[in-house]
């Protein structure tokens, strides 16, 4: 394992400290329990809190700021955070209109957020993200996994919450975005969890893992490496089968890198996916290409399609100012 790590035990704390120092105009870091929140607390709005295992940066801490999250709770690498983190984060950011938890559907995340919710002294609701169409049940979850669609939910609901919308309508919008979003990923290499020190799975030079999860957990099948056009066609077909879009639908197309795939390749994937979706009559109204929900040093990418409507489009376009996503302000 060759990584920029002083000591495995200090990895998370040093990374969080660096992140907070680099973005001190936007975020404040708290240790014991660990959480990151906006540098300036917002007033009279639903507070959005997310969290999960670390190793998916910029998710979630990179999405703290105007138009997205109020706080995020980072766990150890690929390990769910604990309820005391969520309670401390809630205490710091609650501003009179309740707490909305945004939780990716993994057993550990779901249970820890559930226990936090039960102990929370504020009005609260939870949006569960389950956009991965690759597998119904996976290593870490019962039901579909939450992957890159999380970014879209955090952005759309985050901007909606800035308008002063109440907790119940924020949750309704979050559930709607989740139900209209589908993703699927593919890996060319494994990732290496620092504490483990070796690759999570074995995969050779001539293979790919179709439907891989964001922790390097298995997907649909192991296949021989093929052309980008062929790989993209399979990913798009799975997403299409799930969303069943009608011709003329407006979509947001997100090509997300897993950490070790260059942008140049991500744009090749975008090129293939966009052509295919347009051929099938969809209108690509918005697009995003980059490393937004990563899996440490895994090479690979995912395709996410969100079926837009006027409401989702309005809040996707609204100004956002976070360390990892910024426009319109």
């Amino acid at each position, binding site marked *: 394992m060759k990584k920029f790590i002083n000591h495995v035990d200090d990895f998370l704390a040093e990374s969080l400290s660096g992140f907070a120092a680099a973005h001190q105009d936007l975020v404040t870091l708290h240790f014991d329990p660990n959480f990151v929140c906006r540098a300036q607390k917002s007033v009279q709005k639903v507070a959005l809190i997310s969290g999960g295992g670390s190793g998916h940066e910029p998710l979630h801490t990179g999405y703290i700021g105007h138009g997205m999250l109020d706080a995020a709770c980072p766990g150890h690498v690929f390990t769910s955070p604990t309820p005391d983190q969520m309670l401390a984060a809630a205490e710091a950011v609650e501003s009179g209109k309740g707490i909305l938890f945004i939780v990716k559907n993994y057993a550990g995340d779901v*249970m820890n957020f*559930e226990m936090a919710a039960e102990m929370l002294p504020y009005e609260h609701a939870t949006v569960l993200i389950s956009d991965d169409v690759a597998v119904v049940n996976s290593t870490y979850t019962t039901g579909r996994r939450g992957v890159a669609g999380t970014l879209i939910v955090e952005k759309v609901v985050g901007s909606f919450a800035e308008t002063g919308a109440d907790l119940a309508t924020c949750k309704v919008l979050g559930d709607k975005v989740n139900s209209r979003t589908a993703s699927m990923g593919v890996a060319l290499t494994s990732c290496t969890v620092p504490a483990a020190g070796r690759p999570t799975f074995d995969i050779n030079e001539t293979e790919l893992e179709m439907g891989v999860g964001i922790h390097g957990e298995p997907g649909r099948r192991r296949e021989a490496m093929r052309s980008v056009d062929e790989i993209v066609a399979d990913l798009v077909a799975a997403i299409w089968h799930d969303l069943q879009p009608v011709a003329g639908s407006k979509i947001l197309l997100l090509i997300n890198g897993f950490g070790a795939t260059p942008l140049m390749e991500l744009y090749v994937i975008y090129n293939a996916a966009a052509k295919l979706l347009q051929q099938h009559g969809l209108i690509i109204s918005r697009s995003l290409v980059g490393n937004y929900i990563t899996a440490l040093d895994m090479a690979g990418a995912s395709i996410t399609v969100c079926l837009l409507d006027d409401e989702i489009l309005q809040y996707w376009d609204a100004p956002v100012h976070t360390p990892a996503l910024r426009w319109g302000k």
Partner: protein
Amino acid sequence: MNTEFILKAAQAVNAAILTHEAEIESLDREIGDGDHFINIKRGSAVVIGLQDELAGLTPDVVLQRIGMKLLSTIGGASGPLIASFFIAMAKSVKEHGGETLTEIAVAFTAGVDAIKSRGKADIGEKTMLDVLIPVAGKFTALAGQGADFASLLQALKQEASLGMQSTKVMIASKGRAAQLGERVIGHIDPGAKSSQVMITAVCDLALSLKQVRSLI
């Protein structure tokens, strides 16, 4: 079940899991993701570290503190499950008492039920519940029949062992092992094994105390 017994039980559990380290780790490498032993060791060590702070508190408060500490220490999926067990036991002891065998059986069952509902799992899914559910059932039945102390504890040890062995032929539908399908047949579930080890350690401790009164 007084505070002194709970703290002694924590020591006994810690010693027992360290004794079975290699066995539990090897089972988890075969069908898990290799972190089960690290997680229970971390949890067990943090409870040992609480001993001074807990001595002198009432049993329900001790169980609650242990649960909350485990909840903020272990993380992942196993943290909330194990923490739920202690928090539910604490509530039961507070509301229904924890002195007679019947009351302790009620508290233990409340803990097991909390794991079932938190994990949305039941018997037959190749998890710790394949040990915990039969043990809770046996405990309740024997306590209700007024069984003597020593034979009750021996029966619980036997039930834990049978439950642990029963996971060998099962296919997993929860947890990491669920991904492996039929490949897990022939392997004992590591969570069932660690549960059996812990229950056995607590029963042996209680048996060694000889007099029932020193337990309650």
